[in-house]
């Protein structure tokens, strides 16, 4: 028996392909949620209302301090007990998105706090509305520098997708494992999954880098 058998590679391919689609979809949609919700959380945390900003900070702290797997289990298995029934796919993407939104909100916050106070003062002096100030003055300066930081979480989330297998979502690693157990042969499928994670991560990292350069040029920040 060979250590590496190419025929298994071809046989495993359809499994991995189906799984890869699920993995990539979960990552893209989940990260979209994380980006938007993370920004929303960061903005709410800037609220001058102490109760609102403190409550949001506590929620972020709570999400960051408990395991992702526990959060997935809680919503998926405990939720129905309270009448909250969500599909596995909905729970998976939702919890991934919310979990990473908590991390992304911290990155946004760093970016926002990094914008000089003078920019706010100039906006007041020019009588710009608060919304206009955020949209046209603060965020265009806050976001380009933090793209690499957000990108790290993008790749981090991608590598966390195997957690979805715990609620019976057939993402790529689960597909590889299933192929292995069906054929009593794991090495090819698991290795291929690993190679795919590696390639995707490298491509994603290059994309993040390109977006970062493009945004910084676009807004003339170095």
């Amino acid at each position, binding site marked *: 028996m060979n250590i590496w058998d190419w025929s298994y590679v071809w046989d495993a391919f359809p499994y991995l392909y189906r799984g890869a689609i699920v993995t990539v979809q979960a990552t893209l949609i989940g990260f979209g949620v994380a980006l938007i919700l993370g920004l929303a959380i960061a903005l709410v945390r800037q609220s001058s209302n102490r109760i609102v900003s403190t409550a949001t900070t506590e929620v972020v702290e709570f999400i960051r301090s408990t395991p992702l797997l526990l959060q997935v289990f809680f919503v998926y298995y405990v939720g129905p007990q309270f009448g909250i029934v969500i599909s596995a796919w909905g729970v998976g993407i939702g919890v991934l998105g919310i979990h990473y939104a908590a991390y992304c909100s911290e990155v946004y916050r760093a970016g926002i706090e990094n914008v000089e106070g003078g920019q706010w*003062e100039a906006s*007041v*002096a020019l009588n710009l509305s608060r919304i206009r100030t955020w949209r046209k003055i603060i965020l265009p300066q806050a976001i380009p520098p933090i793209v690499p930081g957000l990108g790290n979480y993008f790749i981090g989330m991608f590598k966390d997708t195997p957690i979805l297998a715990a609620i019976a979502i057939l993402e790529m690693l689960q597909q590889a494992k299933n192929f292995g157990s069906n054929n009593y042969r794991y090495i090819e499928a698991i290795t291929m999954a690993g190679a795919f994670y590696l390639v995707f991560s490298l491509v994603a990292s290059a994309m993040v880098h390109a977006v970062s350069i493009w945004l910084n040029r676009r807004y003339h920040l170095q």
Partner: protein
Amino acid sequence: MIEHNVRLGKMMTRSKVLDHLIRDKDNVSIAMTQPMVRFENVTKRYGALTVLDGLNLDIARNEKVSIIGPSGSGKTTVLRMLMTLEQINGGVIWVDGEPLTHMNKHGQLVPASERHLRRVRAKIGMVFQHFNLFPHLTALQNCIEAPVSVLGLSRQEAEARGAELLDMVGLGDKKNHYPIQLSGGQKQRVAIARALAMRPKVMLFDEVTSALDPELVGEVLNVIRTLGTEHDLTMLMVTHQMAFAKEFSDRVCFFHGGKIAEQGTPDQLFGDPQNERTKQFLSAVLEAR
């Protein structure tokens, strides 16, 4: 306290009457007698530290007032309160006959809402020590952002006006440059054009030459000089440029310990200061030159 409010209420009515007169062209002379800016018993505290203690200061329409004094004397705070960048802890600030920090509600003055602040502070423009230009926008874009989004000008209108203002400050050829491509003096001139684009009645200059290399100070002061002589603007500036304050201002206020220790015409204050603190400060400043 009640008495205070009644008094303010009366002032309010009086100022409303004046407000109408301002719009009546035949009565311009009456409006001219009303101060453009009035600090009425204004107090500002940071925690236990009282930065300004019961400040009373009237600034007439088109008057050019320089504020000088040692650091920590509260002089920059005066401008920042007027621009509503700082909240005041007591008293009332009036602009053009209207309360700025407060608004009239059932005959009483109550702290201003955001909406009221936005309406009244539209009359004020400010130029900062560190320019505070928007680095991601060109010189021209810096000058049109607020006119378009706040005043509701069309883009063409705002661009024409912005270009005209940049011409006026001598930077017509730099309108498509980003702040990072400009020298300090050029940045400050863009900042002046940007503030003027909002058509303020009052311009505040907060140590606008302090962050500049010495050889760039002149070009900024020249622009301010032109503004003062060719435009109807009330100007209030905190400055360390004693020669410029002397030449340019109608009145100079010397701040010390959160109060106006002495004020007068430049000739009085620089030529024949009465207050011991003023003398000390002026001789220290002159020695340093």
